[in-house]
């Protein structure tokens, strides 16, 4: 079925326009030849039905009916050869090391600011900079325990970092469920092709969480704090809690007494030592941050400061994934590690720098503009695809609040064969590896490959017509 597939433009993951199927796709391509369209259709439908029945769904943001949708899944895997993955792994380890050092620094000595490497103004004005935590010692000195870093490839196939998600990155449950679905659909392929497993993620995550237990707690109680069933990632929260064998709690299940956190159980209060929280900083404790929060635990921050409970990720990591701060990550790598970035950034213009602002405003129709603190594909202008009105609206927004915007040239993400109405066509993809920082830095092979299912679209977010693919990292290079 893939025989008729053609490259239309840009970098294609599977096909080299000159030499044909790339080496690392060869085995898959040969095996897939034996799958008939009828068979493929049956597999596709059975996977969709299984996802719906298992409730592997997300809630659409802002949908009052609480309707659930399945995250569309495409059966053609994205394949990464070993040497390419090792390069990415090194690059990601370098990046997370620099980000954690940066966070430690700006919440302590602020050397990087004093040395003038990053203008002070950018850090101190950032919405997610938590002044309250300056000079606070986070357990084991780790700020970002779980990071999801989005990678894309340019027209020559070079990997670039698009953004870091260092607060509550989601999507890892899809990595695990996609793999399960693929194993059911194509059981014979895995061994024949040599695909690295991803199944140990929950154990690695639990290890990471146990690593930060408060001093003196030998057998910590770890819980996952969820906003609740109406959160679009609720499926993931239950999935991870179940696979780690820990309790999933809501704010109302917890309370603080004498600076210690307890959960309400049928046998009375039980102490809690580590909280993997999937609730934003702003909502985590109504006595410290947003007073109207119904999701938080009053007194939690106090217990955290007293060292009786640990949080992952730490409070205040949002400053590191601010899109303006992104611009400075290569400088952080240089400053803290004295290395060149292994995976480069996408060229970026800061609207609050006079020259960059001038350039950005003059070239808006060619640029992608992003708000510094938004994610999920919201608050974004795609210059080349926008109407004149949309561009003018953004122009005003940028002028009104330059600190809050960055601009980047339009990068045409790499494309990947994807099932579209009976045939296979190229669709744009990105890659989100998940990086765990505990005793060691661990990255499960691959990550979540998101695919923009609409023709020509570059937005891969699930809320905006994105789907996903299984990502296969090979043991070898072909």
């Amino acid at each position, binding site marked *: 079925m893939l025989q008729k597939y053609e490259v239309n433009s840009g970098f294609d993951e599977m096909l080299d326009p000159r030499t044909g199927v790339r080496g690392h796709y060869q085995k898959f391509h040969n095996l897939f030849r034996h799958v008939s369209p009828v068979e493929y259709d049956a597999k596709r439908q059975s996977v969709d039905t299984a996802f*719906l*029945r*298992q*409730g592997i769904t997300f*809630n659409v*943001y*802002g949908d009052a009916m*609480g309707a659930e949708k399945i995250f569309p899944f495409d059966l053609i895997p994205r394949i990464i050869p070993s040497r390419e993955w090792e390069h990415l792994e090194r690059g990601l380890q370098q990046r997370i090391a620099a980000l954690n050092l940066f966070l430690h620094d700006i919440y302590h000595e602020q050397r990087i600011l004093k040395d003038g490497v990053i203008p002070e103004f950018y850090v101190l004005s950032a919405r997610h900079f938590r002044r309250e935590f300056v000079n606070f010692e986070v357990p084991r000195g780790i700020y970002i325990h779980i990071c*999801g870093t989005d990678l894309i490839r340019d027209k020559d196939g070079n990997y670039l970092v698009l953004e870091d*998600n260092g*607060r*509550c*990155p*989601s999507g890892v449950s899809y990595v695990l469920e996609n793999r399960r679905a693929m194993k059911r659909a194509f059981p014979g392929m895995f061994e024949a092709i040599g695909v690295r497993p991803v199944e140990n993620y929950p154990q690695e995550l639990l290890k990471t969480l146990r690593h930060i237990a408060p001093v003196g707690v030998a057998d910590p109680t770890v819980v996952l704090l969820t*906003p*609740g*069933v*109406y*959160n*679009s*990632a*609720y*499926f993931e929260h*239950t*999935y991870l*809690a*179940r696979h780690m064998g820990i*309790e*999933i*709690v*809501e704010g*109302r*299940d917890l309370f603080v007494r004498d600076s210690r956190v307890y*959960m*309400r*159980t*049928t*046998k009375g209060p039980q102490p809690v030592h580590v909280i993997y929280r*999937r*609730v*934003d900083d702003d*909502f985590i404790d109504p006595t410290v941050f947003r007073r*109207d*929060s*119904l*999701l938080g635990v009053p007194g939690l921050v106090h217990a955290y400061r007293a060292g009786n409970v640990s949080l992952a990720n730490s409070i205040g990591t949002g400053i590191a*994934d601010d899109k303006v701060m992104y611009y400075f990550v290569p400088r952080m790598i240089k400053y803290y590690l004295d290395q060149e970035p292994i995976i480069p950034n996408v060229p970026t213009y800061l609207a609050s720098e006079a020259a960059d602002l001038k350039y950005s405003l003059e070239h808006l129709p060619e640029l992608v503009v992003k708000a510094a603190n938004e*994610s*999920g594909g919201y608050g974004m202008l795609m210059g080349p695809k926008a109407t004149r009105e949309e561009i003018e609206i953004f122009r005003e927004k940028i002028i009104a609040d330059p600190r809050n915007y960055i601009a980047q040239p339009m990068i045409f993400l790499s494309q990947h064969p994807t099932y579209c109405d009976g045939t296979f066509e190229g669709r744009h993809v990105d890659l989100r590896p998940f990086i765990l920082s505990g005793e060691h830095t661990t990255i499960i092979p691959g990550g979540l490959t998101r695919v923009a299912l609409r023709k020509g679209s570059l937005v891969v977010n699930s*809320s905006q017509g994105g789907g996903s693919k299984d990502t296969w990292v090979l043991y070898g290079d072909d």
Partner: protein
Amino acid sequence: MLSRVANSLYWMARYIERAENIARIVDVNLQLLLDIRHLDERRLIAYWLPIVQATGDEQEFFKLHPQATGHAVTEFLVFQMENPNSLVQSICQARENARMVRDQITLELWEELNRLYLFVRSPQARDSWRRSPSDFFHEIKASSLHIVGIINATLLHNQGWWFVQTGQFLERADKTTRILDVRYESLPDRGVPDRISSEDALEWSAVLRSCSAWDAYKSSHGADIHPRQVAEFLLLSDDFPRSVRFCVNELNRALRRISGVSEGHFTNTAEKLTGRFLAELQFSTIDEIFEQGLHRYLDEAQAKLNNIGNELFQAYISQPFEAATGEHMVQQEEQQQQ
């Protein structure tokens, strides 16, 4: 175990049981109508109204429907989303509670409950109901029994499972009293009726069928239907799994397994009330019950079960965990999605 989790498991079980009971009541009564002659509108209403009354949602019903016609009653009990206790709503609630404790239940349980939910929410459910109500109800009943089987066969029989048992048996005991109460108007205020008409016999057999008790009853009493025996069977039988005595016995067992307290003692009011009610069921005769009036007795039984439910809540849950609404829901959605 988290109190909120115990609460959700308890309500999940109650709602599954509730849905199945509604399926049986409506199914049996629709079939029974086929056997009754000379039906006019007045008689039809006299037939359906007690069924609504038995559910305890009479007020709710008349807010939505002017008259207890067959169509209105079945719609109200089965599909109406405005009725918080309709069959479809019960399944939605069961599933919502299961979703809140998705990490505590097995994949098998979640998949079957979610499948049932997707079915009743789909247009196929209405189609199936229009084509053949009895096929539709069969689907619901089969799925509910399947779910109960999965609960017993795949869940760890730990504290959570015992909370499921309390929910299931409390609901079942309550529903059995309500089904038994449907035909109380044909009974004298006090005492046992001497003779009953063949039509009455049909209606009492419907009561049995609504409790899945027909085969069990026949094997112990033969085909002779009399309200005295029917009530005795549904209230006092110690081996029929839907009789009130059986359910209260199971409830008593579950409560003791949760607290670890032995027979003859109690540590909370729920245990005390359950033990007392059980003793009363064990040491009563059906003639004494008819002497004080079946209807009054059933009313009191429902109040006792209600109290046990409230005390159970006091002992283990203590703070209400309602589903998030309004601002709470908005904040849950609003958390930054990265």
